């Protein structure tokens, strides 16, 4: 056993590709998702139709463009230009003030600010309109003179008040990486033994299946754990993502998820006879569902019922829920013991299945 584990570590440390996946990938992914791939919008180009500028419209425009969300501020000659500018593609939203804005306001009438957004990217359009509405509502309240509305919605974004995308991505990245490193790497490394013929020699030795599996898995438990910790550290220090709940609990749940992913990897390798198959299976059976069906990118609530059912079977779904609860909400085990139990059961099933399916012979 000891020799086996040492051997596995040597395999990993001597293989440039393994090392890159293990240690390069987390770095790149976190930085990529944190900096480059983001669903926040900053500096969107916005144009303005303001036929008769006055104090109020100027004031509103200043407020809009000082927010940091919008840039540009080109004044269009009239509504007829809007279509043209959208087609050119540089302007994402146009703010239209009706004429005699200030006068109407003084007379107690309700002047209208029209927000026209390019909804060919619906999410971006919605976000822009929301930002702008928020700023205009704020201006309303600051006026005071403006007759109060009967019902005022007062939104408050809990757990992520500034709606930072990185809060959302860090749990997802940890999940994806643990899945990738643990499942794919173990399944490939077992398949490699089969491909190289060394499995034959391992089988004609007193090693029990459980020893072979444990020997394979142990190094990856350690390395994946180091990985998870480094992602957490990086997201804390670079992006300021907090860990509100118990760090210990978070790490313990991570280990549980690592074990689950590893047992999945072993299970895959009992089916795959070469590295290529192992890789394809891990990719399609694990990676894609992890990304698509776990709620990491696409909200589960919006999926068709069938996919929602399938997503129940996806281990990442439960793990992402747990990890978000701990990191962002500071929740404790009482809050997600059910999810933890589901993960534990899944791990048990896969470990048992892989030990049973592990072939003690070649055919």
């Amino acid at each position, binding site marked *: 056993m000891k020799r086996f584990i040492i051997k596995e570590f040597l395999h990993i440390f001597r293989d440039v590709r393994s090392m890159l996946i293990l240690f390069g990938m987390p770095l790149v992914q976190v930085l990529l998702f944190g900096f480059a791939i983001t669903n926040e919008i900053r500096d969107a180009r916005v144009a303005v139709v303001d036929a008769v500028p006055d104090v109020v419209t100027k004031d509103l425009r200043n407020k809009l463009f000082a927010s940091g969300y919008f840039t540009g501020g080109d004044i269009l000659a009239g509504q007829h230009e809007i279509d043209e500018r959208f087609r050119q593609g540089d302007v994402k939203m146009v703010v239209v003030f009706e004429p005699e804005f200030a006068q109407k306001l003084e007379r107690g009438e309700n002047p209208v600010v029209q927000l026209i957004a390019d909804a060919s990217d619906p999410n971006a359009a919605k976000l822009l309109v929301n930002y702008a509405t928020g700023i205009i509502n704020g201006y309303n309240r600051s006026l005071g003179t403006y007759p109060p509305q009967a019902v005022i919605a007062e939104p408050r974004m809990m757990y992520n008040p500034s709606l930072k995308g990185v809060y959302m991505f860090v749990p997802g990245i940890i999940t994806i990486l643990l899945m990738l490193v643990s499942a794919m790497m173990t399944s490939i490394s077992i398949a490699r033994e089969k491909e190289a013929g060394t499995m034959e*020699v391992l089988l004609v030795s007193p090693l029990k299946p459980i020893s072979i599996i444990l020997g394979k898995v142990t190094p990856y438990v350690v390395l994946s754990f180091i990985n998870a910790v480094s992602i957490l550290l990086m997201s804390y220090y670079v992006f300021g993502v907090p860990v509100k709940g118990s760090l210990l609990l978070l790490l313990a749940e991570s280990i549980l998820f690592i074990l689950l992913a590893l047992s999945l990897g072993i299970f895959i390798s009992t089916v795959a006879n070469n590295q290529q198959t192992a890789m394809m299976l891990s990719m399609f059976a694990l990676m894609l569902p992890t990304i698509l069906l776990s709620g990491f990118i696409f909200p589960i609530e919006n999926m068709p019922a069938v996919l929602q059912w399938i997503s129940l079977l996806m281990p990442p779904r439960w793990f992402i829920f747990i990890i978000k609860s701990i990191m962002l909400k500071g929740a404790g085990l009482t809050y997600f013991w059910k999810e933890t139990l589901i993960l534990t059961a899944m791990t048990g099933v896969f470990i048992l299945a892989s030990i049973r399916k592990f072939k003690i012979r070649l055919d």
Partner: protein
Amino acid sequence: MPEVSITGEGVGKSYGTTTALKSLDFTVNKGEVFGFIGPDGAGKTTLFRILTTLLLPGSGKVRVEGYDVVKDYRILRRILGYMPGRFSLYHDLSVEENLRFFAGIFGVDVRENYHLVKDIYGQIEPFAKRKAGKLSGGMKQKLALSCALIHEPVVLVLDEPTTGVDAVSRREFWEMLMRLKTGGITIVVSTPYMDEAMRCDRVALMQQGNIMTTGTPQSITAAFPHKIYRIKGSAALNILSLTRKMKHIRSAELFGDAVHISTENTDQAPTAAEISQYLSAQGLGRHIISEAVAGIEDCFIDLMKQPDRHV
């Protein structure tokens, strides 16, 4: 009666519709070097995988050291030393790391058991830090053998250990096996090289999943029923085609740069002088013809040609 190490009774194996082994019977005695000789596809590897508990026999029974390969596989996996056809080493591990690993999985200590492999491992020890993948074929073979021996196996199973290895290393390898044999270990070896058969105590000639004959190499060659002539000349292919046209010639085969022809056992069969005359008459230049003693390869080809072997 010598003590028996391995017995096979009616051992068969098929993969789907292809039959790899038909129904083999054989015994290997304790302490002998037993060779399974045959070309690729004869079923040697399948048979060896059954011997080493890696495959279940489709039919029949195999016992190794008294243990059944199906039921007692756990015990057998402790006492077998197995070297698969491809040298199954970890190419990214160094020579000594490989040896240490294989000692480790058998729960033995390299230092304690070093005497077992000293003779062989000593030759590659200067390269202990080199990666196994960077070794030459002969060195890989020595390392693989050391790894198979480090746990003091009772039976050593070597599947084509000399394939892909240069001539010098092949000879060295057989010398190593001869020395190992003096320690009393039973060695089962397979090879497609007929010349290596003579090194074995006993051999089984295999062809298309059958054992054609079993015995000491000497008894097999002595049983060869025909006269053999060896012809050496500058145009071996010409000799081949010319002699094949002669009457009462059973076979003419190319052996390296010479042609072996065997004649029928009749009075009309041509003598050496008559063959030589014929060849000269057909315009063939200088050649030497001599009567030869049948080798294993002659026997093999002869057995292969017997029609009842192609069932």
